[in-house]
């Protein structure tokens, strides 16, 4: 059952990702991107990471993608404004290079898998609920990175505001 579910989800995610890359109109890209996100979130659930799955849907599928939609509507690009995409020859070149990377990664996976045994471990995950563990770690061991992350977000907010200001002609 789990195996079937995995393959179905994998295919859905990959396919929608392909559409994200290859469809021409930005609005379609965004919609398939949302589908990819949802597929990934489901995979997270399959991996017993329920909290991450929730965050994935709320942050990515919710906030980030809505942001993309807003920007697309804000720019309101006509068909003629869309950049002309490259020719098939260039497509082939890019795809080959990307695939080369993936193929080269496979031996790496092969060497990792035996070490980790390939079987899901419960480890400390079994001890308490997912959320409990994350919260505890985040506010003890990772307190400093957590605070730094909040600063990063603040900086992003300020930066966005500064960049998005109405430009005065000078």
């Amino acid at each position, binding site marked *: 059952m789990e*195996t079937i579910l995995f393959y179905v989800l994998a295919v859905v995610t990959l396919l929608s990702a392909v559409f994200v890359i290859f469809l021409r109109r930005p609005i379609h890209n965004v919609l398939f991107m949302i589908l990819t996100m949802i597929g*990934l979130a489901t995979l997270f659930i399959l991996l017993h990471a329920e909290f991450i799955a929730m965050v994935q849907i709320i942050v990515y599928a919710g906030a980030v993608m809505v942001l993309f939609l807003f920007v697309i509507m804000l720019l309101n690009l006509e068909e003629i404004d869309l950049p002309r995409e490259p020719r098939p020859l260039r497509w082939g070149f890019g795809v080959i290079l990307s695939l080369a990377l993936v193929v080269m990664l496979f031996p790496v996976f092969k060497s990792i898998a035996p070490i980790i045994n390939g079987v899901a471990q419960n480890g400390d995950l079994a001890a308490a609920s997912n959320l409990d563990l994350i919260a505890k770690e985040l506010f003890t061991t990772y307190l400093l990175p957590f605070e730094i992350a909040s600063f990063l977000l603040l900086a992003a907010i300020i930066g966005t505001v500064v960049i998005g200001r109405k430009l005065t002609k000078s």
Partner: protein
Amino acid sequence: MVTLEHYLVLSALLFALGIAGVMLRRNLIVILMSLELMMNAVNLSFVAFSRYLGSIEGQIFVLFVMVVAAAEVAVGLAIAVAVFKQRGTININDISLLKW
């Protein structure tokens, strides 16, 4: 049975798609989306490792990646809007001021 390797391969394929998007597309917004895709691919492998190593740290790392991704998207889109306002295009091949 689904092993760690399955997830890693899936993650690698997603990552490759992201790279392809960055390399091939000329639409700035789509490139930003491709970047998001790459980050998600990495997240997937983090969560998979977390599951198969029985450790929570992978998931915590994913949270931080998400923070960075969110910040990056916000700033990136702001730049895209600003560039479009000023230059009337989102074709990155037309935005090559940093040239000799």
